[in-house]
């Protein structure tokens, strides 16, 4: 039980530079005096956003260390993870050929797969969603089926897609595709069904053709819903990566986790999980950002 204390010590220097940040700026005479409180306020605001998650992580690590201790059975402690997987943490870009690569390359390969699978499901999902949303009978016929299918977990699609495609590569992409498509279809359909009747009336008075209606009214009116679907979808497709790469083998973060599990290298899995989580977070933010730009900041209205 001596470990909690040393693990707390790095916590104190960490916030120090952020808090002290305004101080060095005060020295150069070039900075206008009126700019100083502004900078100070910004630094304070930034610290207010950055510090709480850092502190939470440190507290969690300390708790984890305290609970697991140094026994070498079962879950490794943070200290053991650091000792065992130091190379993996510090050198994400190494490449010794074959499967022996840094985690960056594994994640990169997986991202390419998700990129292909997710792109196909985005295109198909939006088109199907528009169809289901604008056709009452299609909605009545298909929506219940979609609602059932969307609850099927990625792992369950695996044997089915293998049986259908016989090959690993298309099956893996299909698992990503089928996992991501449901929220995209469902949200797009909801968006199409919720187009305000006023916009439809405007289109009628202007006598817009179906193609003009699609591009000038339907798509922009549904964009916020589509991007909600895409955001959930990209999260789901990233969730499916482990399941889909269990098939493929070779390079990829999903197969890496599976491989390390078979080799009982739990510490490596923990490092890989951190990568998976961070990547998923950035994917989500990326889609949200694209959505913000595409809907010109109108997502709320």
């Amino acid at each position, binding site marked *: 039980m001596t470990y909690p204390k040393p693990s707390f010590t790095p916590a104190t220097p960490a916030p120090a530079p952020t808090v002290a940040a305004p101080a060095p700026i005060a020295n150069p005479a070039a900075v206008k005096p009126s700019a100083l409180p502004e900078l100070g306020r910004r630094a304070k605001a930034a610290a207010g956003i950055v510090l709480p998650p850092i502190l939470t992580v440190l507290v969690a690590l300390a708790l984890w260390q305290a609970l697991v201790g140094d026994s070498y059975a079962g879950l490794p402690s943070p200290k053991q993870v650091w000792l065992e997987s130091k190379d993996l943490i510090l050198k994400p870009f190494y490449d010794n050929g074959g499967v022996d690569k840094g985690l960056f390359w594994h994640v990169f390969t997986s991202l390419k797969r998700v990129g292909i699978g997710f792109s196909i499901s985005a295109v198909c999902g939006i088109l199907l969603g528009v169809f289901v949303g604008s056709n009452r009978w299609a909605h009545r016929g298909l929506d219940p089926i979609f609602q059932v299918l969307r609850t099927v977990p990625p792992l369950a699609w695996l044997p089915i897609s293998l049986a259908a495609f016989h090959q690993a590569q298309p099956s893996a992409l299909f698992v990503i595709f089928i996992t991501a498509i449901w929220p995209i279809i469902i949200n797009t359909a909801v968006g199409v069904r919720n187009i305000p009747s006023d916009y439809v*009336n405007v289109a009628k008075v202007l006598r817009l053709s179906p193609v003009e209606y699609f591009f000038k009214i339907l798509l922009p009116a549904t964009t916020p819903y589509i991007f909600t679907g895409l955001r959930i979808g990209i999260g789901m497709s990233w969730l499916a990566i482990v399941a889909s790469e269990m098939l493929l083998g070779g390079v990829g973060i999903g197969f890496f986790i599976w491989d390390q599990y078979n080799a009982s290298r739990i510490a490596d899995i923990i490092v890989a999980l951190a990568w998976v989580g961070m990547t998923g977070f950035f994917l989500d933010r990326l889609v949200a950002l694209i959505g913000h730009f595409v809907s010109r900041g109108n997502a709320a*209205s």
Partner: protein
Amino acid sequence: MAKAYLSIENVGVTFAKGAARTEVLSGVDLKIEKGEFVSIIGHSGCGKSTLLNVVAGLTPVTTGAVILDKQEVNAPGPDRAVVFQNHSLLPWLSVRENVSLAVDKVFGGKKSAAERRDWTLHNLELVKMTHALDKRPSEISGGMKQRVGIARALSMEPKVLLLDEPFGALDALTRAHLQDSVMEIHAALNNTVLMITHDVDEATLLSDRIVMMTNGPRACVGQVLDVPLARPRDRLAVAEHPTYVHARASVIEFLYARRAA
């Protein structure tokens, strides 16, 4: 009898929802001349919006017909531009784009790109909205949105301009400003206007004739009142005018005394 410019002939509308049938309008007759400003007033739910939608072509008639400039109305079109109650501007388009969407669609084959751009600007000038061309609807006030809605409708050069309670959602001061604007535009362009309202003063000030509708279901035209006040009308000067006071009193009498039961 000479054919009127806009003729609503024996129009009846019945909505069927499952087995339930509601007869909203029954035997509505109304003739409107070119350049006339006609208001339709009535209690909420009497079917005045339905009547406007019939003229717009958005609601099909069950019986009767609407004839505009010798042609029967059976579908919506830009010759009957509507200013909707809640502005219905497209939030992803700027003020200018909202109007140019209509201009490009209606005059796409007839005017050059430069002419269409000028025409868009001209109509936004009419409603005094050129200061906010590149703003989005969410960035301007309710009154401004309604101005843009009017500019969009005017830009289609409609044969008849349909106003569906256009100022209902606005505060009294903004409403007065917009009413003055509508009067100015009507004086300048001499449009044929059909306006739905539930505001007695608004109807009396703006209209050449006020059409009072009976309460639904099976609503029809109860009474038509001429407002023979000279134009241009000034809201302050006109307020004390015997014709105005009399017209206003008759409408109130119709709405509250005779139909109260």
